[in-house]
């Protein structure tokens, strides 16, 4: 589902964030991406969502060669991906419902469809009762769950998360990870960048470790 072939990302200031990185994550797999801060985890995710393009090499996502994807088609490509952020990045002036509805509104779903799917997603993360609340009134864990509901509400084939448990205590972090597992179990390909090594050691998934822009083992593989 996600393939990197000898990908290098060099920034204009000369810094090489990724160096000849190859990886392969099968459809329906779940994997963790770890490494110290600055190792290139975020860059790898940014290349996957086409926030940036690689300097060299090839990135394939869902069969699309991202090098060949025109700027005009990027929005449609991104609708296949759900993204969860460390600081959740919810819109504070909108209700939980409206935040979660955003990807569906963007995709142009009907009003009824939006309502049904948003309620289903909020139910899944256990926050249906808070649909009318504003994000600031929620706890950190709840805010992150709203962020996850938003990331899956449009049923993406790929779910990416960048330090989703960065600001949460271990118990809440475990809860969030279980949520990701449940989405993986229904067929969503999940890639989670985290430096919480102790947490992912408890779980039985592939771990890809980046160090200074390269994988510690030559190639990252996740099944």
């Amino acid at each position, binding site marked *: 589902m996600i393939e990197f072939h000898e990908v290098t990302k060099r920034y204009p200031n000369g810094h090489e964030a990724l160096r000849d990185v190859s990886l392969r994550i099968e459809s329906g797999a779940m994997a963790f991406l770890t490494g110290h801060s600055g190792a290139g985890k975020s860059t790898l995710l940014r290349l996957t*969502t086409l*926030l940036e393009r690689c300097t060299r090499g090839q990135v394939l996502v869902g069969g699309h060669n991202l090098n060949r994807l025109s700027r005009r088609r990027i929005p449609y490509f*991104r*609708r296949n991906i759900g993204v969860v952020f460390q600081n959740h*990045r919810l*819109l504070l002036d909108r209700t939980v419902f409206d935040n979660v509805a955003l990807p569906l509104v*963007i*995709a*142009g779903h009907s009003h009824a469809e939006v309502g049904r799917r948003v309620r289903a997603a909020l139910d899944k993360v256990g926050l249906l009762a808070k649909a009318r609340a504003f994000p600031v009134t929620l706890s950190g864990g709840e805010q992150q769950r709203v962020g996850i509901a938003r990331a899956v509400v449009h049923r993406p084939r790929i779910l990416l998360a960048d330090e989703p448990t960065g600001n949460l205590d271990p118990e809440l972090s475990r809860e969030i990870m279980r949520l990701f597992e449940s989405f993986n179990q229904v067929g969503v390909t999940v890639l989670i960048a985290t430096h919480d090594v102790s947490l992912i050691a408890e779980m039985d998934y592939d771990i890809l470790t980046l160090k200074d822009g390269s994988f510690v083992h030559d190639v990252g593989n996740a099944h």
Partner: protein
Amino acid sequence: MVSVPKPAKMALSAGGVRRLRAWFIRHLQTFFYTLGLLARAPLATFLTAAVIGVALALPAGLYVVLDNVREATRGWDASSQVSVFLKLDLDDRQARAMADRLEKWPDVEAVRIITRAQALQEFRALSGFAEVMEAFSDDNPLPAVLVVEPRIGVTDTASVEQLVERLGALPEVDVAQLDLAWLKRLFAILRIVERGVLVLTALLAAGVLLVVGNTMRLGIENRRQEIEIAKLFGATDAFIRRPFLYSGLLYGAMGGLVAWLLVWIGFLLLGEPVERLTLLYSGEYRLQGLGLRASMVVLGGGALLGLLGSWLSVGRHLAAIEPT
């Protein structure tokens, strides 16, 4: 054998209709969403609309003034009269005889006589120099005047001027004068003012574009996070642009409405004094406000300027925002 109609074409058109319907609904949703956004910040919305409204009211108001002046002076050049000042030594009887003679001219419609005594009386009443004029009570300095109205149809300037020349050449006549020069000047001035209003309109329209553009720039800056998130979840540029374009359109339309109201208020304030003025001229003129067509132009022009302003600004500023 059972014939099976080909569904392909129908399905296609049905799909097209569905897509058109979805498009329409999305626009409607965006429209009301934008309306809600503007309504949530009524003061800011009103201030922006007011700035646009004042800018639009100025040319609209001037247009109304011009339109009225044009309307009030219409036909003035057609009703030209020739004032024939007779020599001072002609008495009223001779003047009357001359009037009779002139009335028989083929290109003269009517002749009105202002005797020397009438002229003096009129001058006393209108000039306000009644006391001074008392000094002349024995010795009237004013000549008799024949007011000659050219025949209907002889309204072209050349033949009227020819008539004036012939009247002036008569031995009994001191001066024959066609008072059209000031009218010509007035119309020339009106044309300059018209041009000025046009220039002013263009300048103020540019001002409206800048005001709307700047409002959009601030709006985009305020909603930067929202735009980034929307782009991350696959929003197209068109999707992000749409609410801004609608808010520009709404600002412009509201500005047009404000302008219309301002002109209307000005019209109410001016109506009464203008009526008094026309009474003094014993005229029947009634002040005219913005007509239906001009009203549509003000409202529609405002909306169009708002849309254009936001379109220019949004295109430039949205491209600068990429999610991080």
